[in-house]
């Protein structure tokens, strides 16, 4: 009955403007796929009743914080889970409100698929563009534009086509590979899990069918071998006296026993002697596996260093150009110093230049405005205190991403994607 051996994991996120129906859609998806437990449903039904709402407000299934329920909006990402026989889904339901964009980015950063909701009455809004742009910036491989609240526009095909065209006029400028459109009503359930009888003109699939079938096998990089050393395993016991293993998670490529590898930053070369795990030795390891590598030679290697193939190196350097999403009330400071966290490496950096700020609506590059405030997106040049080993974010989402940490407050103030 439960075939766990072949079940894949798919992570998806919601995006779109306030009140476009993201949380309601997730509630609907959970409810119609029979993933809601009786006691959860009962609690939500009672809550809706106390609030004097007609019907059961399915958004309350994800809006779990007191402040969210009071205001009827989502503030922070809620993670929800459901599975069908083919896949286990991890949903990040994110807020539409501009003030909480950073929480949207949090939910979207690990997603394979982004669902972008649009209220059919309102069409494409500034937040729709912002979120679609962030999704493309984060290189979420698949976008599904859900044109929602079709029940409020008489399930009109004309309106659907109009919005689809409006979105496409904007999205052709974005770096997205795979965009899909589905007309839905999150409230009534049309085309979410069950096909809608109200839109015979729509020949495509339901949302759930799409999520179960979209191809995600190639979302990882299996070509360029990258192994950031996370933790050195040294048992110091009689049985494992000279054992020295390098624990970490494969960030790209496939490592095999016997492979010739190069260590960075030292540049020494050696061979993989063993790929070790608690369950025994492995022949090969690939992303996103957590393993322990043992090397033929005793060389200097510690957390933050990287194991790569001899003839396929990441970039190494101290001068980087990054696209940054800024999260903090305190604007990004030109010449300011921040801590950078990148793979398992940490360094300090100085912001050397703000190259341009992006106008979300037109995607115009503003070279004059140097004020990068909360929720702004900009391209900046930074210099780090020591060399980082990186790839462009387009090539590898793990070795191409970094965060900015404020040195005074320790807060995560920005997300950076290396160009």
């Amino acid at each position, binding site marked *: *009955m*439960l075939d*766990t*051996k072949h*079940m*894949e*994991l798919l992570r998806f996120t919601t995006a779109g403007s306030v009140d476009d129906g993201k949380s309601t859609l997730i509630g609907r998806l959970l409810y119609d796929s029979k993933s809601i*437990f*009786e*006691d959860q449903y009962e*609690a939500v039904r009672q809550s809706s009743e106390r609030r004097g709402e007609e019907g059961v407000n399915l958004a309350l299934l994800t809006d*779990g*914080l007191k*402040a969210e329920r009071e205001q009827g909006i989502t*503030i*922070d*990402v*809620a*993670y*929800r*889970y459901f*599975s069908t026989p083919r*896949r*286990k889904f*991890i949903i990040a339901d994110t807020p539409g409100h501009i003030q909480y964009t950073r*929480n949207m980015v*949090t939910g979207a*950063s*690990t997603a394979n698929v982004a669902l972008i909701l649009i209220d059919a009455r309102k069409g494409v809004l500034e937040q729709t563009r912002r979120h679609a742009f962030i999704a493309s910036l984060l290189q979420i491989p698949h976008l599904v534009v859900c044109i929602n609240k079709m029940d409020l526009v008489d399930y009109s095909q004309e309106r659907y086509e109009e919005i689809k065209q409006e979105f496409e006029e904007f999205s052709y400028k974005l770096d997205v590979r795979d965009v899909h459109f589905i007309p839905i009503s999150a409230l009534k359930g049309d085309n979410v899990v069950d096909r809608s009888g109200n839109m015979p003109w729509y020949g495509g699939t339901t949302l759930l069918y799409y999520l179960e079938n979209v191809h995600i*096998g*190639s979302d990882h990089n299996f070509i360029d071998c990258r192994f950031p050393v*996370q*933790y050195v*395993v040294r*048992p110091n*016991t009689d049985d494992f006296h000279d*054992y020295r293993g390098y*624990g970490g*998670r494969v960030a790209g490529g496939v490592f095999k026993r016997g492979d010739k590898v190069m260590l960075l930053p030292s540049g020494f070369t050696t061979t993989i002697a063993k790929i*070790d*795990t*608690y*369950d025994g030795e492995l022949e090969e390891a*690939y992303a*996103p*596996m*957590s393993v322990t590598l043992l090397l033929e030679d005793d060389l200097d290697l510690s*957390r933050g260093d990287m194991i790569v193939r001899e003839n396929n190196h990441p970039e190494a350097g101290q001068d980087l150009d990054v696209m940054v999403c800024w999260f903090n009330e305190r604007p990004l400071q030109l010449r300011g110093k921040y*801590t950078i*966290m990148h793979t*398992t490496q940490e360094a300090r950096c100085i912001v050397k230049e703000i190259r341009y700020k992006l106008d979300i609506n037109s995607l115009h590059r503003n070279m004059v405005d140097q004020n990068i405030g909360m929720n702004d997106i900009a391209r900046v040049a930074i210099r780090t205190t020591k060399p980082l080993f990186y790839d462009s974010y387009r090539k590898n*989402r*793990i070795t191409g*991403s*970094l*965060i900015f940490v404020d040195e005074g407050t*320790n*807060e*995560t103030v920005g*997300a950076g994607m290396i160009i």
Partner: protein
Amino acid sequence: MSYNLNHLKELESESIYVIREVAAQFERPVLMFSGGKDSILMAHLAMKAFYPAKIPFPLLHIDTGHNFPETLEFRDKLVGKTGARLIVGSVQEAIDRGLVVEEKGYNASRNYLQTTALLEALEQGKFDAALGGGRRDEEKARAKERFFSHRDEFGQWDPKNQRPELWNIFNGKKHFGEHFRVFPISNWTELDVWMYLAQEKVELPSLYFAHKRKVFERDGILLADCEYIAKRPEEEASVKEMTVRCRTIGDMTCTGVWRSEAATIEDIIQEVAAARQTERGGRADDKRSETAMEDRKKQGYF
């Protein structure tokens, strides 16, 4: 090319990554261990993360004094297997010292008092990261929690102002006196946990399997008959023996048991897959109000 991890392997890999990250970023981590399946899973994953070395941090059990007797026995056995050090924070001791006051009446529970004992144990041990087995699918406030969850110097959580957490980059930076709660199995569901424990053939306490026990009903929940719960006269009269099992293991005063015939882990998986109630549906502590969990978490609960 078929480089594809199945979903349990991917979850395992993610959890191991988080556990190793804690060992690397913090000076004094500790693993909170309740004796339930989630902490058993956590201990198992921690062993995997550092193999063949021992887990490089101690385990911490907050003992309410109201345990199912089987729990402590199992705890000690498992601790022995991991080779890690065990620290016990005692609620009874906190009561004896007048640090907290025992609740009275029929619904009295030491569950709330655990927070004080926990915060004290963390402070005494100068722990800067406490690893917990909380999962986001357990409860709606938990669904909002980050992997690395920052706590101020009072141990409190500020759900409206959590740090953004991007990709798999975990920011464990903090000021002196603050600490982190870390939840490596955030993305596991109850069913994932059972399927994985079955696949890994991990040993489990007998409480999870169907057994005969004296129980009585309160507010639609079956509770184990024990000396720690004050029963109303009609409850006293309704005590009877049934075949039940636990879906979660916590303090006896607030852990409901379920009628079940599940004798093996495969039976449990079938049962959980078909369940129409969440596992916390039997937790009296969550039912006190709509935001009971959020309120407790803000104060520093697990």
